[in-house]
């Protein structure tokens, strides 16, 4: 395999081609600084502006010559080629991610190694069938209406742009699978903190079957978000129908300026996740250790870089002196569980956020309000509030730093979740059943058993929406009786 993703050795600059409907474009002319100091070279997106989108939608017809099973097989074949130790494109992506990503090489390695699993036929079939229903993708599904008419419904793919997040490489793979599985035409805009994973996936696809319809409907490139000269020409209803955007408040707000009738925006906006631990955790030492172990995984998986990681844990220890003491004990155990997580799951970060470090050291001098376990180096920390409020810098918690907040009643914990809350990990199961009907009213989007926050599946709704269904265009054929 001839890799074109070459690191120019002397300059530490990575080359990122544009992949345009099966065509490899390498006339590099623009240099960008990635996050954490990585630099990369790309061709000018502006130069290809009028070739990027699919202006003739009838060209999507070739996707309908393929059955969903054929698409699943194609993706499976692709998955088989995504073996890190064999695929040079993926190796280059991994190498660059080691510099550009917030994740450490060990955790990244695990993530890249598990990519082929995402492409397994049973996973893709489950996703399409559970979330959409394969019959709707394959055919016109008839329904008899009350008034006697028959309505047939079919789900068509759309022309999409994916503005993907780079905090975890899995996002690139999942976006590709979703897009191909729904017969969408997909343009991926690369994130600066993971500028090569999506490129590697599509370049592997190009090498596998350059003329395949799926390959012809996948493009990937980088441009600096905010390049209005380029974007104003590009984000038009005659070019695209759906924008699927991950990202922070400002970037989503920015994208929304291009919305107009004919363009639909599907957002995965920034979320934070929490945990609620009921008083049963303290019933005996063994339970407390188990709870700590499970809590540690929810904090430490992906090095707490993902939206599903717990950052604040509300614990029903009580707020009396005894209660706080119980929570401090739990804090100590949790800290130990956190730093002892195996390195393929979680490691200390490459760079510990300086601002967070200053926040932690600032409160360390006062034992009355917070107790801090760990955090002297970059290994992670457990901050135990000594009263029922989280730390003021809770929005900055990352790199395996979690805040335990004592509460007397679960109500206090409920008050603290809002529409920015994605996942809530709960212990015990009985408590979950008790509050799962209330949490969504406050804005919670996913409830899981404590310890399973990172166990996300492509076959579920995400962020309280059905993105796969929304990526489709739902067309009706209405047959009148007369």
């Amino acid at each position, binding site marked *: 395999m001839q890799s074109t993703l070459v690191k120019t050795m002397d300059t530490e600059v990575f080359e990122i081609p544009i992949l345009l409907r099966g065509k490899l474009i390498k006339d590099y002319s623009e240099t960008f600084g990635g996050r954490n100091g990585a630099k990369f070279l790309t061709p000018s997106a502006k130069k290809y502006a009028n070739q990027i989108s699919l202006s003739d939608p009838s060209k999507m017809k070739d996707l309908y010559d393929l059955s969903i099973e054929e698409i699943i097989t194609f993706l499976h074949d692709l998955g088989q080629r995504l073996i890190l130790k064999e695929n040079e494109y993926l190796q280059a992506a991994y190498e660059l991610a080691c510099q550009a990503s917030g994740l450490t090489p060990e955790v990244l390695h695990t993530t890249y190694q598990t990519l082929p699993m995402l492409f397994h036929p049973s996973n893709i079939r489950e996703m399409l069938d559970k979330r959409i229903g394969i019959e709707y993708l394959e055919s016109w599904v008839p329904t008899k209406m009350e008034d006697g008419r028959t309505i047939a419904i079919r789900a068509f793919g759309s022309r999409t742009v994916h503005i993907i997040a780079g905090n975890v490489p899995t996002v690139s793979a999942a976006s590709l699978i979703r897009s191909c599985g729904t017969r969408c035409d997909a343009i991926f805009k690369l994130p600066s903190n993971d500028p090569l994973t999506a490129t590697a996936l599509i370049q592997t696809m190009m090498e596998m079957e350059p003329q395949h319809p799926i390959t012809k409907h996948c493009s990937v490139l980088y441009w600096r978000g905010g390049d209005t000269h380029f974007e104003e020409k590009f984000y038009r209803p005659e070019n695209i129908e759906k924008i699927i955007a991950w990202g922070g*408040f400002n970037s989503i707000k920015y994208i929304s300026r291009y919305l107009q009738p004919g363009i639909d925006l599907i957002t995965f906006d920034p979320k934070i996740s929490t945990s609620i631990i009921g008083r049963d955790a303290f019933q005996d030492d063994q339970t407390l250790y188990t709870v700590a172990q499970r809590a540690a995984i929810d904090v430490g998986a992906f090095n707490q870089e993902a939206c599903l990681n717990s950052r604040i844990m509300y614990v029903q220890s009580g707020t009396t002196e005894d209660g706080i003491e119980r929570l401090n004990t739990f804090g100590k155990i949790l800290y130990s569980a956190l730093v002892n997580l195996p390195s393929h799951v979680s490691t200390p970060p490459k760079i510990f956020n300086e*601002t967070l470090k200053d926040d932690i050291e*600032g409160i360390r*001098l006062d034992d009355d309000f917070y107790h801090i376990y760990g955090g002297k180096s970059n290994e992670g920390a457990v901050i135990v509030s000594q009263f029922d409020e989280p730390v003021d810098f809770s929005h900055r918690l990352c790199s395996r730093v979690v805040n335990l907040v004592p509460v007397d009643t679960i109500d206090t914990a409920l008050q603290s979740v809002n*529409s920015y809350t994605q996942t809530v990990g709960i212990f015990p199961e009985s408590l979950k059943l008790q509050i799962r009907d209330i949490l969504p009213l406050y804005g919670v989007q996913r409830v899981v058993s404590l310890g399973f926050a990172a166990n996300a599946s492509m076959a579920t709704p995400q962020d309280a929406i059905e993105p796969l269904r929304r990526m489709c265009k739902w067309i009706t054929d209405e047959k009148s009786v007369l």
Partner: protein
Amino acid sequence: MVLSTSKLSGERQSEMFQNPQSLVHATNDELFSLETDFVQQIQLAGAQKRFDWFYPRIKALKKLADEQNITEIKTLNDLAPILFLHTVYKSYPLAFIEKKKFDKLTVWLDKLTTHDLSAMKTDNCNSIDSWLEAIEKQSDLQIVHSTGTTGKLSFLPRSESEMENFKNAFYLFIEVLTGVNPHKTKMPVFFPSFADGRQLAQRILSRFGPMLAGSKEEYHTAIPGYLSADFMSLAGRLQAAKAKGELGKLQMLKALSYNRGELIRLKRNRPKYMAAFFDNMVKNYRGRQVFMLGTLTSMIDAALEGEKQGLSNVFASNSALVTGGGLKGQVVPEDWYERICTFYGVKNIRDGYGMTESTGYMPSCDQNHYHIYPHFIPFVFDIGGQVLPRTGVQTGRFGFYDLLTESYWGGFLTGDEVTIHWDDDQCSCGRTGPWLEKKIQRISEKNNGDDKISCAGSQEAYDSFIDYLLDTKEE
């Protein structure tokens, strides 16, 4: 003792060894001609005395020193692990303010000052302003608060006891920048901001402004009245909530805002106040030599506003325009420097580097370098937190020990990255001692931190807060 070849007599030198605070009684010429070895010995002797005095009196220092196993100061670098991070003075939980648990806030502050606050009555306070007032009524403290760029204010427990030191250090600074000795020469002072308040600029100028001017009548501020700590805090929290898109929080903050009438009055009267300020300048001080003091952003705001009224070259060209604080995040016209000089009629703007926690400032010279007075013991740390050697040119995080503090510990670790030139690389302006390059950057901004609203943008935050509360701007 290494004898200094400087202009100091033996008696003066020994006084400096006995009492580091006497450093501010020396002249600028003397202070900037001292030899490195001599300065470092004075600093070490001073640091030893200050540590011994503060250690039993400040609980937070005792805790930190005990944790770091520091029992005495044998070398300057023994201070390094016990500098207080800039976050320490805002390490209280914001919930104490939101839930009006001001007695707890007092307990927190008590650990950071030599003053005994244990008998303070603050449980009836219902705002930050009333809490500050209650503490100041019952003690000698004169708390200074920060601009609270994220809405959380730092509270620095200064007191009357160090005001004389501050005045002397401030006068030294003014003299370096302007060539005018404020002890001898009095000039009218203009300060384009609020007259009163507990933010540093208001604290310092409401006290020393009239002294610099020679009388209250010759000291001129733009906006009469008090810059409220509560409003500053709300303004910052509003900006932070807006930046993060926390709409629920915006509603909560809006509900918190009391004194709506006062805000309306202020908004209505602001243009009138500014017009009167300029009118006074032009009618009574046109072409005269004056002091113009304030943060850089307040100077620019005032100049742009004055321009609109068709004013320029307001003062005599030998007037002294002294500022600090930098532009930070504020959006200003590209040619702001030229415009500010044209408006006020001066050739250049002089500034200094310093912070809420420092006694006085570090003045810039004609080479555009910040010179560090001997009462500051500077430290530069590498990314791992190790002190870099006191030789050559070093870039890293800036810390300092301030020998002039009385009621709070003088050691600070800032959030700024600086480049320092130690004494073996003397500045061509002729001053001895270490100096900092002009480019100073916040470490949090360098690493893409989210704390982007800077202190220089606070006036803007304040204005937009008022607009928000009054519903005059579309949200």
